[in-house]
């Protein structure tokens, strides 16, 4: 099945980082909606947001490290990957996966900022 594919041949692995971003987003949105609507518990909501951000960032960094290794940029400083070979396909998927973890990291940090500046459920 597709989720058992090795990561150097998998689109699913390539989009892991933004998927983590999406899950983090849904989680903080859902938690805030419930905690604020039902219990007016802004502090608990913010705490949950910070905690889930820590988890999400850890996961994304792990994914990004894997992708970085797969990209193997330092071996030849190549970022074109346009040959019809297993190696280029593997490195291409790694490259995109790495860039996506970069953008996902920025995304997760951005989405956490509201909890820094907003302290109430208003």
């Amino acid at each position, binding site marked *: 099945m597709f989720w058992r594919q090795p990561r150097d041949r998998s689109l699913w692995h390539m989009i892991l980082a933004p998927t983590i971003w999406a899950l983090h987003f849904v989680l903080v949105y859902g938690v805030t909606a419930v905690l604020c609507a039902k219990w007016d518990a802004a502090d608990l909501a913010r705490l949950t947001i910070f905690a889930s951000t820590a988890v999400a960032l850890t996961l994304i960094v792990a994914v990004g490290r894997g992708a970085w290794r797969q990209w193997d940029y330092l071996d030849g400083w190549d970022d074109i990957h*346009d040959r*019809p070979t297993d190696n280029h*396909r593997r490195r291409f998927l790694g490259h995109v996966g790495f860039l996506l973890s970069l*953008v996902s990291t920025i995304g997760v940090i951005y989405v956490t*900022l509201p909890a820094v500046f907003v302290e109430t459920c208003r």
Partner: protein
Amino acid sequence: MTDHSRDAGLARRLPEAVTQPEPVGPFPPTDEMLAVPVDPALSREQADRLKQAWHTPQGWRYLSAVNNTEVGVWYSMTAFGFMLAAGVLALLMRVQLAVPENDFLSAERFNQFFTMHGSAMMFLFAVPMFEAISILLLPALLGARDMPFPRLSAYGYWCFLIGGFFVLGSVLFGVAPEGGWFMYPPLSTEAEGLGPDIWLLGLSFIEVASIAAAVELIVGTVKCRPPGMRINLMPLYAWYVLVVGGMILFAFPPLIAGDFLFELQRSFDWPFFDPERGGDPLLWQHLFWIFGHPEVYIIFLPSIAVAAMIVPTAARRPIMGYSWIVLSAVGTGFLSFGLWVHHMFTTGLPMLSLGFFSAASEAVVIPTGVQLFAFVATLIVGRVKIILPMLWIAGALAVFTAGGLTGVMLALAPFNWQVHDTYFIVAHLHYTLFGGMVFPIIGGVYYFYPSIRKKKLSERLGRWSFWLTFTGFNITFLPMHLTGLKGMPRRVFTYPGDIGWDWLNLVSTLGAFVVAAGILVFAWDLVRPKGHQPLAARNPWNGGTLEWSHDVPAQAWGVRSVPYVRSRYPLWDDPGFLERLDAGRFYIPDAPEGLRETIVTSAIDARPQHVARITGPSWSPMVAAVFTGGAFIFPTFKWYLAAGISGAFAVATVIYWLWTATARVPEAPTKDAGLGLRLPTYVSGPKAPGWWAVFITMLGDATAFASLVFGVFFYWTARPDFPPAGAEHADLRAVAAAAAALTLAWATTLGARELNRRTLRRAARILLGAGAALAAAGIAALILAVRLPEMDPTSHVYPAIMWALVVWTVAHIGAGLIMQLYCLAGSFAGRLTPRHDADLWNTTLFWHFLVVTCLVTAAVVGLLPRAL
């Protein structure tokens, strides 16, 4: 393999599963293999047979054509026609707003016009245009003969045509919807007349067609690439198609779920959005914008994809930062789902929630910026030649950058509170949509036209059109920023003369007519007779990608032979490529069986897997679309019986179409695909494009279902009286019975597939029959569970949403039941055998999703309310 007597002989132990043939032969081909010449006489014979197989019907039968080159042209010209109509509405509105307190249009007319302008531009132009152009171009870009499901494209087109005329035609009869393209309740739930029903049913109908096209485009990109075109060699356009297809799959279903609830309220008074009975108008806004914001990117990304094809040609070098552009497409696709509440910044949600969406709205700028800078970078390292299409792309970038920069402003919630729903937004959205859609698409038409119609459009008219449109656009929309900042709200049919909006509006109106002139010049260039004009050169812009390997004059076969690809720009990098292609030295150069075929390859590395037989001309897509249209359109007039009959005919037509044209037992298990390769002619399960289509469709379907479940949780958080204190709940025993019956129905379907594979055909039939009976029992039990006097769906939103879940689930079980019976019939008829079991694989896959739907429904209806 179809031997009945084996059932008895092997009854004592379970026999081995029948195996399917695998590809045999060398891959990839060596240079020597590719260099082997083809006898010219043989090549001519092959070409003749191909021509015969791909012959486009003539005369009135032309309308039964399903070839992507025909359907794609109809599709895009229809969408363009709808765009012109919606543009006329815009001009009429601009006339009304030219001077203060004008009475050129009545309030009602004006409101109908702005509603239809937005709805038509979005649903009848922008999204269908992407699908149309992709249907037209994708096979050419991928060196494929056609899309994987040509009849599905045709069905989608006819749905679009019927639905579009129905929705847009309502303007002529003065019954058009007038609640805005966002149809907010309670204004639109309470509105009298047919308008909202026309909008809801007509556009749902078109959305279904859009999803069908998205499914086809995804499968086309993933499974129909030419051998050797690995994922890192795909043309960027295909990457965008993949991303946008995925986005449609997750963005449109929430709107369909919303439409479903909305129409239940309009037709049967189920109070989903009525606060008096526990409903909440904001649920619609969420569902609408979960669709509505990704939709903006669904429109924008394909147009950028067009730019990504033109820029390298203009720069005369490969695109700079291919991976970066893939990153930006995928990243934008994801982030665009975290923006929807920025259309709801003023609805009084908690600041924290607004903050998340504000943050994501800023974050999405980053991948978008990467995209633009990658283009600029390509131009920097290339030796730029400003060809006419590139002029349009440059204009697009100039306009879009401005729209993007105001977008950065709008993403800040406090600033948004000031300018939301003003002309500042009108300016912003037209900058993004003209820059992100209209300019690139027209540029794309100038670029790709020679590949589609084998003639060139006029360079002179193209430049005139560009400068008129570009100047007119800025005259119209640049002042609107100021109009909005000076406080003019959107969607007003009149305004007083003493606030300082008058001269700005007059300028905008004048500009609008300049835009119209520009678009008209383009339209004329497009349709003017070109009979006397010489044929265009085969590769007039000197592009590097496969669409420029097309045949001049046109051939219906798509490609003479399906190429082996080993570069991102085969026409630049692979000398001798065209000669080999034309001589038929690549794959499937022949059609000895007289069948239409294309090659199916593996998803990542594009290794050849299968020669797919694809469907040819037929009236069934059109007939099915007409009946489907009846099922959607008749309820507008409350003709429910007629709608039901029409729906039944639609199902019957689709069954006929599937039965006669899909998953047919081939004459031989494998065939010679050329270059020494023998490929299977029939595959089932994950190797088959059909299985992928079901999988992808069901992802979208699951999203719609998830939106309904989201509705339950939304009511719970938003309303203190959900579920109301002391409310009666669904009958737990009946719910449990339904869950059990449906789980068993799933298990028997799965069992039938396994037994059938092991040649136990009779046992498989018994299980399929039992599965159908269990599915029917499940339907009955689910309905009984909520058919209680205390659960009147009109009384309160709680029983209403429970009923909605049950209705949704029951409809799906009904479909699952039909599929079981279809397989049963196939087994008896000999079109479903132990080796030829694609239908059964697809049915099982459907049931995997269905059983999850059923169990979630059972849990939400039976258990959740008791726990809340």
